């Protein structure tokens, strides 16, 4: 071996060598805990949007609006929230087909998020005044940061051909897509959105985390095709139980009620009053985290963190 090669190997050994002491059992426990932590994003937003749209669409077929046919309709704008229990018994996520098995996700449209250091700067970019909490629990770091996103949009077009092809390829049955559903496009958009975070660095957190989200309320639109069939199609997908389907069908005013997934075996969901508006609080019985969301004057607000429910509500009620 030449001297040069030895030098190369020695440098690599110095910078890349060494051993680490890893406790795989402890890591596995953490892995399992991560999988049951409250995660509002556990079901992709498009799924929530699509399910909400599915329910709303039922209304459209039974009203004169349904006759608008192919025009682009605003079918969903949340003003209230309904907890939807997605316990393991109700939703077997592993059985749910991916969206690309029965349609095509459009290219997501999203503005580049802007990091700013003050509420004033965030407000200027977003075009509405950012509320900031007067009270922050003492265990939360004192410094916060703001991220402003002007627009995020996802769209999805149903395709009967893709559904048939993927069912044949994967040798599993998907419900037959009704002919009139083929080609329907559903678009969900949200923004501008201001997110203020404490204790979050990149994707990680070093300690207690607090997040305040405020956004112009999201909107779901549809090309309005073969309406009633959309709901029964989505709710008949493998992985969605009869209980879950009936919960979604039972939403009182689906055109303005956002279904919020939670796991009843590990979390609680209750109606609360925040600053005069009615909202939904989801808490975690294990103490891992809590959140609350509400709508006021066309804006959607959410506060969540690794805090108790009382602390989260205290922050929410102190937004000024």
């Amino acid at each position, binding site marked *: 071996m030449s001297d040069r090669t030895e030098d*190369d190997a020695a440098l690599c050994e110095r*910078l890349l*060598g060494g051993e*680490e002491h*890893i406790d795989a059992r402890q*890591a596995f426990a953490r*892995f399992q805990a991560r999988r049951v932590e409250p995660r509002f994003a556990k079901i992709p937003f498009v799924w929530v949007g699509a399910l909400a749209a599915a329910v709303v669409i039922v209304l459209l077929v039974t009203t004169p609006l349904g006759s608008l046919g192919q025009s682009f309709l605003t079918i969903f704008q949340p003003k209230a929230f309904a907890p939807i229990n997605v316990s393991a018994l109700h939703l077997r996520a592993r059985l749910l087909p991916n969206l690309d098995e029965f349609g095509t996700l459009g290219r997501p449209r999203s503005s580049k998020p802007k990091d700013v250091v003050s509420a004033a700067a965030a407000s200027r970019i977003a075009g509405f005044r950012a509320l900031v909490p007067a009270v922050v629990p003492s265990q939360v770091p004192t410094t916060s940061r703001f991220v402003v996103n002007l627009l995020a949009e996802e769209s999805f077009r149903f395709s009967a051909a893709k559904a048939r092809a993927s069912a044949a390829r994967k040798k599993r049955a998907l419900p037959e897509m009704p002919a009139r559903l083929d080609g329907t496009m559903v678009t969900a958009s949200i923004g501008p959105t201001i997110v203020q975070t404490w204790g979050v660095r990149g994707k990680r957190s070093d300690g207690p985390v607090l997040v305040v989200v405020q956004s112009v309320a999201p909107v779901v639109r549809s090309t309005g095709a073969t309406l009633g069939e959309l709901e029964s199609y989505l709710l008949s997908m493998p992985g969605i139980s009869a209980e879950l389907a009936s919960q979604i069908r039972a939403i009182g005013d689906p055109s303005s009620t956002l279904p919020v997934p939670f796991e009843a075996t590990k979390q609680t969901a209750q109606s609360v009053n925040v600053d005069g508006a009615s909202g939904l609080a989801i808490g975690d019985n294990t103490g891992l985290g809590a959140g609350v969301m509400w709508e006021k004057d066309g804006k959607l607000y959410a506060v969540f963190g690794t805090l108790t429910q009382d602390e989260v509500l205290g922050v929410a009620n102190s937004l000024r």
Partner: protein
Amino acid sequence: MTFEDVFLREYGRVVSVARRIVGDVATAEDVAQEVFEAFARRFDPNAAHASGWLYLAAARNALNEVRRRRRSDLRERHEFALRGASDAAHQREMDPQRTIEREEVRRLVGAAMLRLPERLATVLALKYGGLSYREIAFTVGIPEAHVGTYVVRAQRAFRKEIEDVGSY
């Protein structure tokens, strides 16, 4: 074999491979958790290629993590400059000499790994992550007899990049 069996058998190796690229165990464990989450979603635990997929995913996700961290560091430096030097929390973090040195080594290693062709970076991470030449050959898809040559090339390229990045 259950998913738990695969996790317990491979977790240490996956962390070890990722650590060679991200530079610290805590971040490597985060990468490993993501890798196993993706594995659980996609594969049967008894899949023949499970180990190879896990090691490759560890290297790839670790490289992505270094890219993400570089972007976020740049943004933070920019914000720090805007806020001025009065940010006590930031100063506390930056203060101890050892932290700075450790961070500097981590930054150098990450930058050098990113500049290498992905296959060479992967071979280095696998070798110093504790895989045998046979396992490296299986994971990367090259003949076992060629692994030694790849390792020497990767070591040489890594040293060159470290020198380039270090003198930058």
